[in-house]
């Protein structure tokens, strides 16, 4: 177990370092001069020099990199050009809204996907199954920047049930969470179905049925609990899709989270904020995946033995 933990921690650290290097290099992908891009062609030379110095762009690449990296360890992500506030402060201020949205979307997707996947697997090849799979296909084919406006059209403008945008009211969370959760529900319900179908074909299920156990308990207790293991890993991986989708969903609903912050920063060419937000979201994703892996390894010994071999 210790070897598995060390291995997993070490590789996560390696990936995090790589991610930071890539985020650092992002600003050097700006065509031409980043300072020109931020201030425009007509800026005064003195202003340019000041910004160049503030961003550290007047120093050699290696010095820039070591400063950036030592800053990371002190939680210093630079200063926003637009608001002159520390990037870390901006990120901390916006993170709760995104966490709230992501958790709500996760809840929505589980509420939809679990019963649907189970129904599809138990009633395999019936109309139920086909309906569930049609929903799943539709769910991955509808982009959230279209589903969002459609939900607003029907439930906000048409029926007036929920606010159009923002985070001020109690019902504000509902539409963004459904928008973000639908695509995940689609993927999840497929996974629940196939995983459950596999488990239902195993010997211990036949034994349980043979000794006269009610089908309800066989499915929901014996089969589903075993089928959920791969689903949990998928949940970890899907978090990346969720965080990426949050950027677009937050823009659609003007939800004041990290995604909205990122897009606003991109449009204002506030590169330190863009870098900080991307870094925070990616590292969160990596760490959550490591935790899922470790939990999985604790629950299922086959995994931890397999990956250290």
């Amino acid at each position, binding site marked *: 177990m210790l070897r598995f933990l060390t291995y997993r921690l070490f*590789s996560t650290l*390696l*990936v*995090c370092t*790589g*991610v930071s290097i*890539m985020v650092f290099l*992002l*600003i050097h*992908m*700006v*065509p031409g001069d980043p300072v020109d*891009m931020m201030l425009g062609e007509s800026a005064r030379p003195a202003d340019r020099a000041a910004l160049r110095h503030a961003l550290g762009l007047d120093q050699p690449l290696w010095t820039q990199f070591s400063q950036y990296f030592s800053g990371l360890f002190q939680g210093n992500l630079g200063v926003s050009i637009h608001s002159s506030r520390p990037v870390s402060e901006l990120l901390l201020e916006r993170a709760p809204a995104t966490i709230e949205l992501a958790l709500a979307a996760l809840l929505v997707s589980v509420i939809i996907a679990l019963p649907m996947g189970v129904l599809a697997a138990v009633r395999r090849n019936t109309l139920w199954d086909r309906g569930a799979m049609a929903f799943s*296909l*539709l769910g*991955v*084919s*509808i*982009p959230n*920047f*279209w589903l969002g*406006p*459609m939900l*607003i*059209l029907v439930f906000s*403008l048409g029926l007036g049930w929920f606010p159009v945008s923002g985070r001020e009211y109690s019902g504000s969370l509902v539409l963004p969470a459904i928008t973000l959760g639908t695509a995940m529900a689609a993927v999840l319900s497929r996974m629940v179905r196939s995983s459950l179908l596999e488990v239902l074909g195993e010997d211990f299920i036949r034994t349980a049925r043979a000794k006269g156990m009610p089908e309800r308990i066989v499915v929901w207790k014996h089969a589903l609990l075993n089928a959920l293991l791969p689903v949990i890993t998928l949940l970890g991986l899907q978090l*990346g*899709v969720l*965080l*990426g*989708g949050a*950027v*677009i969903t937050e*823009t*659609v609903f003007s939800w004041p989270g990290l995604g909205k912050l*990122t*897009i606003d920063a*991109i*449009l204002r060419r506030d*590169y330190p904020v*863009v870098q900080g937000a*991307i870094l925070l*979201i*990616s590292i969160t*994703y*990596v760490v959550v995946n490591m935790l899922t892996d470790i939990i999985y390894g604790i629950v299922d010994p086959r995994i931890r033995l397999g990956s250290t071999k």
Partner: protein
Amino acid sequence: MKRPWLPMAVCLLWALLAIAGSWLPLDPNQIHLDSILLAPGTGAILGYDDLGRPILDRLILGARTSFLVAIWVVSLSATIGILIGTISAYIGGWLDLVIVRVIDIFMAFPGILLAIAMAGIMGPGINNVVIALSVVGWVGFARLARAQTLSVRERDHVAAAISMGTRTHRIIFRHLLPLISAPLIVEATFGVAAVIISEAGLSFLGLGVQPPESSWGSMIRDGARYMLVTPHMVLAPGVALMLVVLSVNLLGDWLRDVMDTRIRQTGTDK
């Protein structure tokens, strides 16, 4: 397995409109000041947008954008990814170790987020969209190609080829790639669907093609602004986008069943 005629027809129509669009008598940028926001049926089949431009014409122009971006991104990322993945698995050793780490790092970014950041930083425009989405897209192909190559490289015919002194590139292109092509073709099909959505997403955020060029994503963004006045502007591009993505996904499902990739995968592992 039944052939999915309807999805095939939709995809064909999409490709045809994209390719033939420039020869059709379209006026996507013609402004009709007396027709601003007019609903469908009155003069133009799908009505007019907020600047009085015919929506159908702009839809066809948008089909061209999504088609071009999808073809370019999938070809670029598949070529790069498959090459890297196959070579990495076949040669192995430290090269493979390094490449696996690089793949891990790219996988650590939520895909669309990296594309948004890159497109945002490089500046808007269709070329930068293609670059950003390819940088994100190659990883999936590399991973799949690597795993597939690992499962077939120990086969007898490869050993025979090596023992006869066949050159490495010939082994990769003639003896390995044909064997692993089926799952890669399926991956590429689903890749097309993902790229269509990503391109539209970037354009929705204002990071894709710039006006007066048209993209379904930017049409949805403009339409959402006038949703309260008239919903037809947001409905048309959304339905088009959904139909094409749905059709490509159905086609991918069908290809996967026809090519039997799952059975092939488990068959070679044993």
